[in-house]
């Protein structure tokens, strides 16, 4: 049996899905969390449950609506569970009136009933059930109440097709005429009368006459007519089944008086973003990273001693210590910083503040051809570009969505953080916090300027959309945040154990062997060196010197950005006389770095093509290889030009 979960955005669908299936999908207190449909199996029942993106109507206005509408109409689930935000009953039931036309059994789930009392709303569930002729269950997905009853109803549901007439008789008569003429269901008949573009083949003279009759009778076009009549029906229903006391100003409204205040809203926003940054990238984050890096160093030394004592051959010691521990350790050292960053993003998402950010910045972003919604991919992209790129689907306007997909990788993601932290930490000492902050601002500036140019030259007249709501502020659920953060950290550590581990071994091999496969060759004669030397000229304008070591490391950023650091560590360690307690910038290999070239190299790694994972996501979301290649060419060119300018201008200034 197939059951579809349908409801408005932010109605608690994903929370209910997780409760029913026992999985743990991402939840956010902002619209559009479910961006693809997801399938799970309901515990105790052998039913497939499909979580569809949140929609307000079955008219395909957004991409999410398109996905949901297609699924429901083409795949015909056996049951629709219509989750309804009981605190916004009227708007939620609008979708219900459309679901009631599909000849599919509908179970109505009134969610968030725990919040009704506070809002002064009373709903007579039994009366509602009687009035609309189908099952109604009250639940609170957040508090986990009413779920058993819902499961019982699903279990005992002897599927009856379900349809309900809700309009006055002269409208119903017209609908019946269309249904008889074309042998279609109620939903399709109404769409034909509305002259929906998907049903254009049905638009004959007869239909035109029926439509004209309705339009002259009601003095409005059929689209407006059906929307009004649906809301009229809901209005009458609401009269009968609910009792609303005038609500007092709620906490969210009070908080919004501060967070959306004309004068303090922006200062608060800046303080919050600064806090996120300060905790994860700044002092707190970097000192925790120093601590872990030290531990890993000690571990490396101990392992070396142990291996040597137990008589392991030189190359095994080198592979384990210089290859694996150095490479993987360089990345693992940043785990504490990532935990803090993921924690901050998770809190922003679940409290509802993220939606306020889109509301606040919409007008500003629009000057550059983006909407406030574009900030969601950018903020999520602070964690990882892949979900950032995927979440860009919340943007309705196609051109704007494409711009956001191409620009999201410019945001310094968690994997780029190690690069920034390592370079700015060493070269800018006390000012390292300021320097890393400047890179974030540079990223924002580049994004806005690029968006402006994309709009001006490539996608003329790009419109933007803003379809959002301000959800109520919620205290984040500790349980959820712990789970969310640990999932993301696990993913990062898993990458360190798989991709980074493999690459570290490969880099070690390419560095330790010559083309003739001789071990322990001078590093200058290694395979990697010869590859690097042929391409190092590309980086000359950025580094001011030919460094094959930096060149091969930067290119490995394609595999994973943190690999740049791993590779540099392995090369420095294998190369010359690096005593382990010192930074790789004290080694002969990388001692050429100056402040300008360090900054330029960071900028290059930040803005050039993202890792393969993100490139894959870009291709999926842009839906075209050509567009993806163009986007990557754009990113690399921009990164190269920008880094060259930074290096040359920086060097010029420091020589003054």
């Amino acid at each position: 049996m197939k059951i579809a979960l349908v409801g408005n955005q932010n109605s608690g669908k994903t929370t209910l899905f997780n409760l029913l299936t026992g999985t743990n999908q991402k939840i956010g207190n902002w619209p559009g969390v479910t961006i693809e449909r997801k399938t799970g199996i309901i515990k105790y029942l052998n039913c497939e449950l499909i979580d569809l993106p949140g929609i307000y109507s079955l008219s395909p206005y957004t991409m999410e609506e398109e996905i949901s509408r297609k699924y429901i109409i083409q795949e015909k689930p056996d049951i629709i569970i219509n989750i309804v935000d009981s605190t916004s009953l009227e708007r939620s039931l609008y979708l219900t009136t459309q679901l009631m036309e599909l000849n599919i059994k509908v179970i109505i789930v009134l969610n968030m009933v725990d919040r009704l009392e506070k809002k002064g709303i009373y709903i007579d569930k039994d009366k509602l059930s009687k009035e609309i002729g189908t099952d109604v269950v009250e639940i609170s997905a957040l508090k986990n109440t009413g779920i058993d009853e819902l499961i019982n109803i699903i279990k005992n549901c002897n599927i009856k097709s379900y349809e309900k007439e809700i309009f006055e008789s002269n409208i119903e008569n017209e609908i019946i005429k269309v249904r008889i003429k074309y042998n279609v269901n109620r939903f399709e008949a109404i769409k034909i009368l509305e002259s929906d573009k998907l049903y254009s083949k049905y638009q004959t003279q007869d239909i035109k006459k029926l439509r004209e009759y309705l339009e002259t009778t009601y003095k409005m076009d059929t689209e407006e007519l059906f929307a009004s009549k649906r809301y009229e029906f809901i209005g009458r229903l609401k009269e009968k089944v609910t009792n609303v006391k005038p609500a007092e100003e709620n906490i969210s409204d009070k908080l919004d008086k501060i967070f959306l205040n004309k004068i303090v809203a922006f200062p608060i926003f800046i303080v919050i973003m600064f806090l996120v940054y300060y905790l994860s990238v700044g002092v707190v984050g970097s000192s925790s990273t120093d601590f872990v890096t030290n531990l890993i160093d000690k571990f490396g030394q101990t392992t070396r001693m142990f291996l040597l004592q137990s008589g392991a051959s030189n190359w095994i010691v080198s592979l384990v210590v210089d290859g694996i521990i150095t490479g993987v350790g360089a990345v693992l050292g940043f785990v504490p910083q990532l935990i803090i960053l993921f924690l901050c993003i998770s809190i922003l998402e679940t409290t509802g503040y993220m939606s306020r950010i889109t509301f606040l910045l919409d007008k500003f972003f629009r000057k550059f051809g983006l909407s406030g919604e574009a900030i969601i991919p950018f903020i999520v992209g602070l964690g990882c570009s892949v979900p950032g790129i995927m979440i860009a689907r919340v943007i309705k306007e196609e051109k704007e969505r494409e711009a956001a997909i191409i620009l999201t990788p410019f945001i310094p993601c968690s994997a780029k953080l190690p690069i920034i932290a390592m370079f700015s930490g060493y070269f800018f000492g006390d000012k390292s916090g300021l320097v890393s902050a400047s890179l974030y601002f540079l990223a924002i500036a580049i994004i806005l300027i690029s968006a402006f140019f994309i709009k001006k030259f490539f996608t003329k007249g790009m419109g933007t959309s803003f379809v959002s709501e301000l959800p109520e502020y919620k205290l984040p659920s500790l349980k959820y945040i712990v789970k969310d953060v640990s999932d993301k950290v696990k993913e990062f550590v898993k990458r360190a154990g798989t991709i980074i581990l493999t690459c570290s071994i490969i880099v070690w091999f390419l560095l330790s062997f010559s083309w003739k496969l001789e071990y322990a060759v001078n590093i200058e004669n290694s395979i990697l060196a010869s590859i690097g030397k042929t391409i190092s000229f590309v980086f000359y304008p950025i580094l001011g010197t030919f460094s094959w070591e930096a060149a091969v490391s930067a290119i490995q950023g394609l595999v994973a950005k943190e690999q740049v650091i791993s590779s540099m560590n392995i090369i420095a360690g294998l190369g010359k006389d690096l005593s382990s307690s010192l930074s790789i910038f004290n080694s002969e290999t990388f001692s050429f770095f100056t402040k300008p070239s360090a900054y330029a190299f960071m900028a290059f790694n930040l803005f050039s093509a993202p890792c393969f994972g993100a490139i894959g996501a870009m291709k999926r979301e842009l839906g075209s290889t050509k567009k993806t290649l163009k986007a990557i060419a754009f990113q690399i060119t921009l990164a190269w030009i920008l880094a060259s300018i930074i290096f040359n201008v920086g060097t010029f200034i420091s020589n003054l």
Partner: protein
Amino acid sequence: MLKRRQRCILSKLKKGQRARVIGINLDKTEMRRHLLDMGITKGTEILIKKVAPMGDPVDIELRGYELCIRKEEMKYIEVEVVE
């Protein structure tokens, strides 16, 4: 200052004002369809509830829920001031 029963477009209203929808001045477009779907139909009462610090977008209350909407869309909504 807008007077009671005066006709105007929704974007002219200030925070805290209420108005009743007369109609949407748009041809058959996606935007119009969306506004209708969200419940902005003839006779609906709208309250201007929250305004973003830069003056746009605006959070309106209608039919017992809140909706964020831009000035750009609001100027197509013809209303009659209630208070």
